């Protein structure tokens, strides 16, 4: 992870896009620097793919400005296309062709391509280089799609749900590959549903909902801004929820039972609150089996933010 971000590679300002009167992207702004992995998180239909496809040049923005390497992607810009690697959410490969054949084809499109055989090895497809694409598993096809995106040595990489159908090992290979590319200066914009992918791979994430960014920053920033730290504890004996809540000076339903014997109360987990809790348990002669203060996970923040805007 680099602390000094490189030059701006992708810049989106107040982007808007409508389809037949339905708003897909509603004033979205984001920027991605060279050497950075930016993750767009959001529920289905939030506008992730639309945003990425506008940046890839497949669709035109209705309003706002979009620049990739300082250029407008919507025009017929052959130079920009030579600097950008694209991995579509699915498809994009000839079902009746073989992986090596496809990689050699795409290699011929670029001035200084990577070696197709090395790339196949890199994504773990050496053994399937002559298998028809239609016979590859979903995860294998995705890895081929990733290799195709990399063959032209792009400066900017767009990955739309890159690891959706991959098994854990393929996912780990992919994460490492993407991380290495970013460390070598490539700007990566990816979309994902997977919170662990966002937390492990992305330097910064943007949570997108209803076509807007509702939270943005490093995964740590986003989680600490979104969660004050829930207190979770497990006891040997049942707890009277209403009595505990009132003893802590909280509303009667503040403390809740997540499952039998497992309790949670909202933070912030101040020393006083913890002292009051343990004091009450001492008075009730209830033994603690476990006591934890937990920072909210990205998933909790994600669910809360995308839930809020639906309310």
């Amino acid at each position, binding site marked *: 992870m680099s602390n000094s971000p490189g030059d701006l590679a992708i810049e989106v300002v107040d982007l808007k896009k409508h389809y037949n009167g339905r708003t897909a992207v509603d004033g979205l702004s984001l920027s991605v620097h060279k050497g950075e992995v930016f993750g767009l998180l959001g529920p289905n239909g939030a506008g992730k793919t639309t945003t990425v496809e506008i940046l890839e040049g497949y669709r035109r923005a209705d309003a706002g400005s979009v620049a990739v390497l300082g250029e407008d992607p919507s025009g017929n810009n052959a130079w920009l296309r030579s600097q950008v690697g694209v991995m579509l959410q699915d498809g994009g490969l000839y079902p009746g062709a073989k992986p090596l054949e496809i990689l050699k*084809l795409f290699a011929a499109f670029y001035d200084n391509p990577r070696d197709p055989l090395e790339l196949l090895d890199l994504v773990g497809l050496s053994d399937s280089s002559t298998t028809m694409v239609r016979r590859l598993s979903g995860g294998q096809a995705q890895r081929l799609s990733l290799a195709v995106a990399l063959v032209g040595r792009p400066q900017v990489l767009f990955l739309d749900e890159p690891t959706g159908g991959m098994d854990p090992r393929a996912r780990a290979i992919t994460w490492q590959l993407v991380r290495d590319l970013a460390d070598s200066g490539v700007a990566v914009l990816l979309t994902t549903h997977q919170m662990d992918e966002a937390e492990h791979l992305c330097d910064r994430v943007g949570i997108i909902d209803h076509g807007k960014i509702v939270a943005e920053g490093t995964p740590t920033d986003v989680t600490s801004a979104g969660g004050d730290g829930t207190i979770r504890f497990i006891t040997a004996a049942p707890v009277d929820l209403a009595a505990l809540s009132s003893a802590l000076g909280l509303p009667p339903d503040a403390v809740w039972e997540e499952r039998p014997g497992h309790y949670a109360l909202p933070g912030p987990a101040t020393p006083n609150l913890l002292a009051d809790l343990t004091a009450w348990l001492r008075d009730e002669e209830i033994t603690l089996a476990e006591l934890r203060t937990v920072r909210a996970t990205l998933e909790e923040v994600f669910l809360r933010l995308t839930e809020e805007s639906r309310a």
Partner: protein
Amino acid sequence: MNARAVVAQTRLELSMTLRRGESLLVTLVVPIGILIFFSKVDAVQLTRGSALNFLVPGVLSLAVMSSAMVSLGIATGFERRYGVLKRLGSTPLGRSGLLTAKTLNILALEIFQFLLIVVASITLGWKPTIGLVAAIGLLFIGTIAFAGIGMLMAGTLRAEANLAAANGLFLVFLFLGGMAYPLERLPTALESIARLLPAAALSECVRGVLEPAGSIPTRELVVLLVWAVGAPLLAAKKFRWEE
């Protein structure tokens, strides 16, 4: 345009075309089969001239239709379905490079078909005329018309519907195209419709220039040109790169 990219794309398109059995069936086996069958079996029942003189122009036109409309259209429809067109659109090859490669692929296939049909016809006893040179020009115009129809369907219909439509239209044009038997055999009403279609227009024009005193029938040439301008324009307007 990036020449190296276009060459690579053309090579792949050609090898994919040769790999598809159904494509070889419709572009090579069917035309040659019709040529041999109808020249040996007297089903044509011409009132004048030899069966081969009637069949050769028809089969040359049929070959162009099978490549430019059926083979190109069906392949493009499935490439659209599988996102291949979309993906290639974001490479330095670009959409114009892709269209150039597809054109070169069809032309290469047609040159092979042309040579095969001419050699087979001569073997069967056909006497080529100087009109063959003019016929090449007409077949080129026919290619534009049929490619326009094929791409219009490929770019607007779902892949399966496009598959059915291209094959269905191939049969209709074969029956109404004056290719295997004369148009005059059709009921009058059907014949008038047939004469407005590109298949009959092309085969009648080619038949005209291949006659000893070669001439192009004006009405048929106009019909052919209208299709050659209208179909590609409509295809360019209606074509959607994603299904």
